[in-house]
Every structure is written in C-alpha cells, then in structure tokens.
C-alpha cells in the first residue's frame, strides 16, 4: 500500500485536481455549515447563548429528547440483538420478509412514519383516546391504587395520570413510539452482516462443550459482536436525538411540553430567534461530533480485533 509506485495511480495533475475538488467540497458542504452553527450561536455573546440553553422551554425540550433516546435506544438494542440472532442463526419461512421489514423504517419517509401513528391513535383513528381510555380503565385503577401507596407511590403518579387520559398523539408517548419506530433498524442492520460473517461455529463449539443458551450469549456471542453492537447503539442514539420528521407529525409542537430539541430549534427559527435557535443547534452539532469521534475510535478498535481474527 505504501509503495510509491502504485500501479493503479493516476498521473500527478489528475491526482492534485481530484484531491483539491474533494477538499473543496468537504470544506464547503461539511465544515462551513458546522462553523456557521457555532458562529451564529455565539454572535450575540456568551450570555445570550447560555440563556437560550437554560430557558424553560429549552430545558424541557432537552429533557424530552433525552427521554425519547433513553427509551428507544435500550429497546432497539434488545430488538436489534434478537432480530439479528433470529435472522442469522435460523432458517425459517418468512425470514426474507423479516429482513425486509427490519429495513422498513429506513425505506419510508419519516413523515409517513409519523402519519401512521396519527392514523392509529389520532382522535379519528382506529384506537382514538376515548377507546383507549375504555380499554385501559382496569390498568388505570390499579395504577391509581399503586400511586396512593405509601412507599413507591410517587413512581406511579405519572403513569396513573396518563392511563386516565391516554393520549399518544400530541403527547410524550407518541413521540417515544415514533422515535422507537424510526430508530429500529440501526442495531439490527449493524449486527446482521457481522453475525452472518462470523457464522455459528463458535456457538456450536460452545454447545458441544455443554454451555447453555444464556451463557453462550454472554461468553461467546456478545464478546464477538460487542464493537459492532456499540457502533449500532451509537448511531441509533444519534438518530433518536436528532429525529425530526416523524416526531414533528405526532408532536403538535406544544411548547415546553411536546417539543424535542430539533422541534424546539425549528420553532425558535420560525420565530426569528436565530441566536437561540443556533445555540440549541450547537448541542445537536456537538452530539454529531462526539458520535463521529466515538465512531472512529470504535472502528479502529474493531478493525484491530478483526485483523487478529485468523
């Protein structure tokens, strides 16, 4: 690779032209916008910047974004692991269909992904809040009773309140569901090719040595896929926090209540509060930078691990 007399190389002027073009595009389309975000955010000073981040609506948006990610990332890690395991370790009818279904959230436009939930849970949908309230009434009673108990009552208060007035659309649960749906493929997509390539040999060896399923998972499967899994989790998290389209449809943009960070930024922008909008945008930009940094670290580690494979 490092041999200067590469056979496949182009002539020198062509090389320089190509490299210049690539760098120019990189600067123009990637670094310039990133720079613009930080420049615009800090244009009216550090005070304004910090104030925009700590005002109530911003804090509530940050909280909701973290909540949506905190639910969807673990859920989709579990789903992704099970789906990848099922698809790569078993041959069954409908396997090809399952693989396509995993990709569905990637294939449909996020707007549709949001509208689907409105269609199901909206006030004119299949399961409107009134019906849900009826269906969930028994649970609501139990939850209310639990909320009244001495010790852990506090834990159930929110749940009890929601079960009495169960709404998905224009409320937090709808945002969480939309986020879970949108971020479903990331972990599975990362693991399927990896587990397919590794094959079941090591797991079968563990079986003949008498290990049970659970132990095989922790001691053989997981150590072999851990970097790929982390990578998938990282991408899943980045998307969960950055998702705009689907969440926008189900959220209803209730300020301080159902706005996630990306939605909050849009609202601010539409109200011509550019500095505040860009201040919040820096958080997402930082998330992207951290994700990229971790991603390249993971790639390096897993690259080393893969190099030592055989």
């Amino acid at each position: 690779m490092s041999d200067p007399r590469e056979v496949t190389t182009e002539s020198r002027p062509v090389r320089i032209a190509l490299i210049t073009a690539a760098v120019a595009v990189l600067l123009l389309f990637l670094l310039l916008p990133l720079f613009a975000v930080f420049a615009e955010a800090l244009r009216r000073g550090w005070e304004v910047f910090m104030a925009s981040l700590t005002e109530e609506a911003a804090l509530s948006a940050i909280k909701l974004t973290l909540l949506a990610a905190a639910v969807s990332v673990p859920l989709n890690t579990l789903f992704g692991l099970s789906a990848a395991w099922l698809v790569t370790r078993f041959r069954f009818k409908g396997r090809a269909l399952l693989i396509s279904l995993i990709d569905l959230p990637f294939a449909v436009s996020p707007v549709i992904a949001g509208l689907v939930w409105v269609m199901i849970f909206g006030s004119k949908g299949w399961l409107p809040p009134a019906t849900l309230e009826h269906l969930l009434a028994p649970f609501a009673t139990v939850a209310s009773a639990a909320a009244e108990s001495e010790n852990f009552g506090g834990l159930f208060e929110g749940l009890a309140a929601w079960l009495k007035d169960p709404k998905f659309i224009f409320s937090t649960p709808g945002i969480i569901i939309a986020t879970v749906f949108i971020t479903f493929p990331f972990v599975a997509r990362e693991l399927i090719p990896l587990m397919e390539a590794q094959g079941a040999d090591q797991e079968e060896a563990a079986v003949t040595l008498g290990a049970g399923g659970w132990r095989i998972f922790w001691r053989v499967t997981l150590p072999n896929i851990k970097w790929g899994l982390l990578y998938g989790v990282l991408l899943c998290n980045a998307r969960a926090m950055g998702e705009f389209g689907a969440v926008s449809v189900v959220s209803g943009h209730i300020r301080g209540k159902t706005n996630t960070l990306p939605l909050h930024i849009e609202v601010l922008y539409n109200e011509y509060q550019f500095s505040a909008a860009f201040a919040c945008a820096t958080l997402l930009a930082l998330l992207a930078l951290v994700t990229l940094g971790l991603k390249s670290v993971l790639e390096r580690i897993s690259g080393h691990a893969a190099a030592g494979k055989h």
Partner: protein
Amino acid sequence: MSISIHSISKTFGTYKALDDVSLEVPNGSLTALLGPSGSGKTTLLRIVAGLEFADDGPGKILFHGENVVSVPAGKRGVGFVFQHYALFRHMSVADNIAFGLTVLPRSKRPPKNEIRDRVHELLGLVKLDGLDKRRPHELSGGQRQRVALARALAIRPKVLLLDEPFGALDAKVRKDLRRWLRAFHDEIGLTTLFVTHDQEEALELADQVVVMRNSRIEQVGSPQEIYDRPRSPFVYEFLGNVNKLTSPDGAKRYVRPHEIEVVFAAEYDPVTDRIARIQHLFSAGPVATLSVRLDDGQFADVELSRKQLDDLGLSVGDEVAIRSRPEEV
C-alpha cells in the same frame, strides 16, 4: 464407547443429504468417513454430535447401546473438532481449553486450581506447553487445531468427532499431525470418528474406513480390505491410483499402477501382453512412474522400483511390453 448408527436419513428442503445410513463404530476404534465433497460426511458427523437432527422416522443413534437421539448436544459427551477450529477468538488458549469445565453447573464444576491443572495437563498432551496465554490468532494452523482438540478433550468426552481435522493445513504439517493423531489415539484409546476427503489420510490413519457417496455408505472395511477389494468402480477410482482399461473384447478392467509389469518389447507375449510406448517418466524418489500409451491409444500409469527402471534402462519414447493380472470389477 461404541457408536451405532441405525437408518439415519436427513433432508434439507427437498435434498436428501443422508439416505438411510447405518454404521457401527467399534469401541476404541479410529474410524474414517471418506467421500467426495457433498457426500454427506459432515452432516452425518453433526447428527452424531447432536448439532443437527435426523429426519423423523425409525432412525436411531446408540452410544454404547443407549439411544441418544433425544439427548441435547451438550449432554451427549462428545468432543467435536471443527474444520476451521472454531476457537473462541477473544479468549486465551488456556481459557479456550477450560471453557467446557467453567460452564459446568456449580455443583459439578471443579475448583479453579483443578481446572488450571487440567488445562496444563492437556496442553502437555497436545504438545503446546507454554502457549497458554496466547490468543488463537497468535498460533499457527496446526497449533490451533491442537488447541481445538485439547478443548474438546477437556470435558472428558466419551467419543471424539473430528471434521476434516487437517483440511486447512499444508501437506507437511498434515503428515506430521496425522502421525501424531494416530499415536495419540493409541495412547488414549478414545472412540474416534473423523471426516476426510483424502484417501491417503484415511488409509494410513484409520482402523476402519467408511466410504460415502451420494448420501449413502458405499463400503465399510479395514484400509486393507477397501484397497484390495473395492466393492464398486466408484470405490476403486476414489481410492485413486488406478488405471481404467478397456480390453479388446470391450470389458472394463481396473489395474493399479504397481500391478503392471514392464518387460522388453522383445519379450512380448501376445497372450498376456500389450505393446506400449513410454510417454513420460517420473523418477524422483524410490518409486518411478511411467506414463505409457498403449497400441490402441489408451493411457496407463505404471509404477516400478528405481532399481527395476535402471535395470531395464528405459527412457521416453522406448517401446515396451506390459503385462498384468487385471482384476475384474
């Protein structure tokens, strides 16, 4: 512990990978499953191990007379060595070997120091002392194969199953490991069933050779029997080193190269001999091989000792008479 396989069939979709296979593997024997690619060797081995399930039906697999068909793989007490080693690549050699012991239920699990001693004992057995801290990727192919063997032996299996144990190794290492495995087997006397598609390996190593073809067993016997009395043209040809000749009367004959005798053309006897011309001559090593072209255009390989070759003083292009005691098949 003996293995008896009774009418086992296996179908993948519509393809019959094993068709009513029955086989006895005597206690303490080293038995080779020999056959071309796709003949069902691995499938049979995996069914014996419990990694694959035979079709429903009358099929049975007995270990020492006990039907194990419904016993899960982990409880059958088989040591399985995979063709590509299947070592746990994130674990050290010692942890690999200890794996089977560390996953035992707490009540049966030996204490840590006993496991360590057993690992060292096994490392000695497979001649890998001192490599316990290495990772699999820091070992050569032959060393990895022996780690896989030690790992399989750690659980004190009742039978040992090896899928092309030397398949991925180069010729020299193959030969060394083959000898080593034979000596090793003689020492520990574990009933062993191994898969190979190399007839030389099967004949040299095994007590009993099982020739498979197209999902069925073609012939079972000692290496001597299989080589001397092949039951079908397929076995004859698969064991290699055979000339398939058509006599002037149209009958097909199989003749091994060393069963052909070469004499001077002047000694030609029209009743038993054929006239042939030498096309090639390979004389590196103690045995020389001649490639000859018969008067009717057929080709044959002939083996003779170096001394015979020198005595006859033959070279390429010479005309000779060949005679044989061809066996009809």
